[in-house]
């Protein structure tokens, strides 16, 4: 396992299956928390660590697909490995389209499940790193003054200093000062890095902050 701290959540209403999955996953060194229903899973406090969800498709009350939808609505990004007693194609297509990692039919080979879980955890890790770096860039961006933000936007769009000065109706020197401030506050080692950060900011939904 690539991450000692990785956590696997299991949601299955069948106690036998739940227990067996817990044991199997613990045997390969994963941390496991199992729940009997979608409601139970949603209600439980979860550590903010790399994790993935092994989810039974058919559950009493909220089904696995319902839970998947609910998690998307709540903006909880956790990779899901679906397991099901009898997987029909339309359901599996729906699950995969909604972003599921894998769709396994019970009983499955242990390696298939472990591979899927590894992949899911890897994806979560990458996503988390991405999230973390984005959060950091956002934090830095937050320290910029409105004028500095204007300068940054124009500079990364490819304008020269004097063009920026003309655009903002300020002196060339002022632009240079602002530009240096931006580079410093954003901790950009090079102009190219600043452009990259600005790209990331554009994809972030939290841009308006």
């Amino acid at each position, binding site marked *: 396992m690539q991450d000692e701290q990785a956590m696997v959540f299991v949601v299955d209403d069948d106690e*036998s299956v739940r*227990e*067996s999955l817990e044991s*199997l996953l613990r*045997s390969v060194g994963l941390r496991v928390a199992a729940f009997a229903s979608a409601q139970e899973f949603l209600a439980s406090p979860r550590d903010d660590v790399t994790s993935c969800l092994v989810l039974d498709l058919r559950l009493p009350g909220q089904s696995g697909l319902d839970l998947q939808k609910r998690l998307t609505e709540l903006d909880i990004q956790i990779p899901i490995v679906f397991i099901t007693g*009898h997987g029909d194609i339309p359901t599996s297509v729906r699950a995969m389209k909604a972003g599921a990692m894998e769709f396994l039919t019970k*009983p499955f080979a*242990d390696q298939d499940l472990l591979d899927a879980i590894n992949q899911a955890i890897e994806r979560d890790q990458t996503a988390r790193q991405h999230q973390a770096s984005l959060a950091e860039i956002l934090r830095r961006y937050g320290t910029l003054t409105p004028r500095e933000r204007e300068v940054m936007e124009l500079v990364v769009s490819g304008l020269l200093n004097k063009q920026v000065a003309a655009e903002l109706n300020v002196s060339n020197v002022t632009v240079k000062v602002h530009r240096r401030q931006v580079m410093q506050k954003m901790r950009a080692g090079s102009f190219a890095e600043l452009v990259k950060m600005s790209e990331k900011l554009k994809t972030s939904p939290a841009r308006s902050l």
Partner: protein
Amino acid sequence: MLKKPSQSYRFWQSAALFLSGGAALGLLSLICFRLHVNSTTVGLLFLIVVVLVSLRASLLSAALVAIIAYFCLDYFFTAPLFTLGMNQALDYVAPIAYLLIAVVITRLMQRVRKFQEEQKRAEETLRKSQAELAHVRRVVTMGELAASIAHEINQPLSAIVNNGSACLRWLAGDAPNVLEAQEAARRIVRDGNRAAEVITWIRGFLRKTDTEKSRLDINQTIREIVTVIEREAVESGIEVRMDLASDLPQVLGDRVQLQQVVLNLLMNSLESMALITERRRELLISTRKQETDKVLVTVRDSGMGIDGESLEKIFDAFYTTKTQGMGMGLAISRSIVEDHGGELWAVTNDGSGATFQFTLLPQK
């Protein structure tokens, strides 16, 4: 089982009747002779004996008794006494009357017995075909439940596979974890038994047997069958509740047949709730003890309900309100319950849906 009296049994019965007929005639002769009863009265008394013997005995025995009766009458009661011979009108009429009565009554009784046997056989055939029909119905039901049952078996199976893999992994490596492996192995045994229980139940349910009544805990009988439909219910968003009384007497019944009745009612309820969207889909199964110690089983749903006109008709064979189905389920259920000495009926709920109830007799 229908028992046909054997040939030798019939022979000995006839012989015994002949002997007792003869003895009766002798006794009557003795008493009447002492009391000086007139010959006509004796003739009538003898006639009664001949009739009684003819009712049960074979033609030969009856005829022999008739002849003895005639000889006794002629010898002891008609003049001249202590001689045989055709001297009076009674001497001519009596033998003819006795023999005729013997022949007619034995023949009639033969017919009656044959008729009775035929009737018994017809009843037996009817009972057999009813049992057969009920069996067919169970097979069909099992087919309808195939997905649920497959699931019931697949769950423990996949748990077994997982536990097996886990067990191997706990034992692998330099520091095997024997405790964890043991736990996994224990779960394998438990889940294997769970799967086997499902199979055993199916076998029993599909077995073709005559009615086998035994003492039953009706609550347990109901719980077993509810497990079978629970999955189906959950997937259809139906809430299943059980309210089983704890003070119930045991009932005398055929477990499979009673489960068939309950299963039939439950599946009807599920079906009638499948299209309900504007209210909660609820299924309530309850048991109660009635004043007379009878057990009352109730299945109540919030489905489409039954209109007043159909309340009785639904129990008729081939009557159905469904698009699919033969209309045999409730008819079979009612005949099973009645065979157990109980009643099965339906009522419309105050709110929505229908309630089916049946009673069972306590085992004394």
